[in-house]
């Protein structure tokens, strides 16, 4: 008898649940299996290879903006993937910095007691949020940047830059041999500032004396590298763009595709960040109250939705494909997919990249959430 009782007793409901789950597993598994069989058949019929061997094959197509060396005749599809990924990260990281600056400005302007300022900021948010991002990108690219004057009518910007419908041409910094010392000094200054800050906090905890960081930080981060810069013999020069007959030589070129995407992403995301900021900061105080009381509390509310806006910006940068900026989706899920025809592998890799980014971010956000959570009784 005692043995019988040890046998797990399940209610009718539990059996139903087990049956349901088994059915779900069978159905999902069956669908995946059927899809795989069909895909194998269809691919075989179309004569398309499968697997990831294409990664090391020569790409054979050009990319208009490459942050690492790349040539259509010698580089592989794998190299093209990294070029695209870096371009995505470039536009996303710049966009995040600019959108944060603009978004906080607009968000704080919305809280202003000046009627005109707060309503202008509100108008900006409503206007920008209610127009699709793709339309905004097209406007910036086709209606604004592409209608700039052509090469001959290039607009000369003071400081040696040119602007025309082929892009923005900036003086390119040329780093001399000794520039490494300057960079090292800057790095050293930042590390020292950080160490000083930690030490200052400790001292404040034990003695109550607040640290006076500003002067030290300025000296370490600005003055030290400057001194090293002059001591090392000013190892920095600029290569200025020059007008030639059919093109512009020298200098650094910013593609109109890149500029349009960056401007549109910044303006669009800033409107959402402004809303996040407004929801987080309910009232403005001045000076120390703002810095020590309002901001730390607001950050707890602001940071999670802010990071999700950063993720949105990164995902939205894939709209690059509409204007031909060579980001990950345009290069990899566009060109590479068209050439190799290996849709399954290419799309899977592309999705994996974005998925990786968002999973890492949400993991970090969980950590942050746990750290700042209010200890409740």
């Amino acid at each position, binding site marked *: 008898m005692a043995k019988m009782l040890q046998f797990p007793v399940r209610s009718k409901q539990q059996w139903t649940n087990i049956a349901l789950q088994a059915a779900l597993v069978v159905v999902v598994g069956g669908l995946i299996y059927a899809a795989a069989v069909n895909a194998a058949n269809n691919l075989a019929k179309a004569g398309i290879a499968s697997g990831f061997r294409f990664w090391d094959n020569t790409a054979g197509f050009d990319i208009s903006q490459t942050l690492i060396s790349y040539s259509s005749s010698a580089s592989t599809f794998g190299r093209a993937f990294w070029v695209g990924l870096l371009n995505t990260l470039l536009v996303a990281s710049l966009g995040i910095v600019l959108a944060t600056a603009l978004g906080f400005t607009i968000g704080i302007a919305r809280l202003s007691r000046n009627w*005109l300022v707060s309503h202008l900021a509100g108008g900006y948010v409503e206007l920008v949020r209610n127009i699709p991002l793709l*339309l905004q990108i097209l406007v910036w690219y*086709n209606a604004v940047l592409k209608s700039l004057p052509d090469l001959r009518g290039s607009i000369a910007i003071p400081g040696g830059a040119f602007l025309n419908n082929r892009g923005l041409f900036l003086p390119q910094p040329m780093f001399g041999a000794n520039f490494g010392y300057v960079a090292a000094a800057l790095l050293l200054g930042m590390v020292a500032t950080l160490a000083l800050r930690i030490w200052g906090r400790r001292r404040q905890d034990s003695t109550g004396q607040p640290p006076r960081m500003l002067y030290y930080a300025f000296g370490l981060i600005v003055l030290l590298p400057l001194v090293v810069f002059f001591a090392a013999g000013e190892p920095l020069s600029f290569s200025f763009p020059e007008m030639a007959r059919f093109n512009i030589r020298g200098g650094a070129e910013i593609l109109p595709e890149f500029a349009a995407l960056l401007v549109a992403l910044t303006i669009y995301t800033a409107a959402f960040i402004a809303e996040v900021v407004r929801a987080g900061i309910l009232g403005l105080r001045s000076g120390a109250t703002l810095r020590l009381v309002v901001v730390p509390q607001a950050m707890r509310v602001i940071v999670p939705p802010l990071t999700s806006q950063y993720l949105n910006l990164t995902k939205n940068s*894939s*709209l690059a*494909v509409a204007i031909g900026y060579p980001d990950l989706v345009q290069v990899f*899920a566009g060109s590479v997919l068209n050439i190799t025809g290996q849709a399954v592998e290419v*799309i899977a890799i592309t999705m994996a990249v974005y998925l990786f980014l968002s*999973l890492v971010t949400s993991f970090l956000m969980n950590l942050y959430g746990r750290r700042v959570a209010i200890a409740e009784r």
Partner: protein
Amino acid sequence: MATADQVYPRDTPAQLLPAPVASTGVLGWLRANLFSSPANIALTMICVAAIVWIVPPLLRFFIFDAVWSGADREACLPSEQRPEPGACWAFVRVWSSYFVYGFYPISERWRVDLFFVLLALGIAWLAWLGAPRRDLGAIYFFIVLPILSYILLSGVPMIGLPDVPTSLWGGILVTIVVATVGIVASLPLGILLALGRRSTMPAVRLASITFIEFVRGVPLITVLFMASVMLPLFVPDRFAPDKLVRALIGVALFASAYMAEVVRGGLLSIPRGQYEAAQALGLSYWRMMILVILPQALRVTLPNIVNTFIGLFKDTTLVFIVGIFDFLRTIEAARGDPHWATPVTSVTGYAFAAVFYFVCCYGMSRYSRNVEARLARAHRR
């Protein structure tokens, strides 16, 4: 003590002085809101300067100098009378039927109009919170309307409605179809996924979480690419869905993951007591959900559902990239028309598109804010 006699309390109240002119009325408002401090005065001046700098040229371009009628590009090119022509609305007027219907056959366009009317009826029924029999409205919107629309738009030759292949659909019609399919499919799917995510059954929960987090982690474009490139591989040749249907599947899956999270938020806001009370009455899981929990959860989260829908409506523009002629794509196609090639054609086309999307999205967001305020009032009571 003469002085003591002279000190006496007033027996009638003194007459109230009117508030100072500078703190009431228009002047007071201006002072408080625009000129309260030197910094504020400077800000106000900067804003006024910005408005003066931006608004008049915009008005001139889009209204006063705009060209409202004409047969081709000649009307919108600079001429003697009009050295600097503004927006070329004549272009929008000539192309307007294309923007609405795409290449839908002219003799069949009444079907599209009827579809718009039926849809407007369904939306009004659901959106007006005081409408009678909103449960019937939901059945109409989520079951009757999709079937009717399919019959109307795609055609059933047997009852005298000739087939219209989706390759001929275009413009606002496609934008509305994509958005409607997105909402009609994503709400039920989203509810199922949200319930799945809160289920006690590990397999169901795992499947829901995987799907939701996967879809929310990738950009819509990759989902659309997957739907348009991979879907045909996954089914046998003869079942390969057409291009629009593939995009619709992608949009529906994408939207349902976002909807699931919105519904989950609503479910989380329902106090435990509601579940326990329903269980104490002996209701089964589904009856508890359908009769007690979901009606409350969906009501609370209606503003968020509308906000998700606004996002979905804007995202419909992305089907452009997989080669479907939605409204934005028709604008792109039309602005390349050599008959209308002028320096202002693109700007006009985009402005028209922007006004369309803005009016739709802003209208929806006003509605969602009204509902939110109403719910907040009901909650306070």
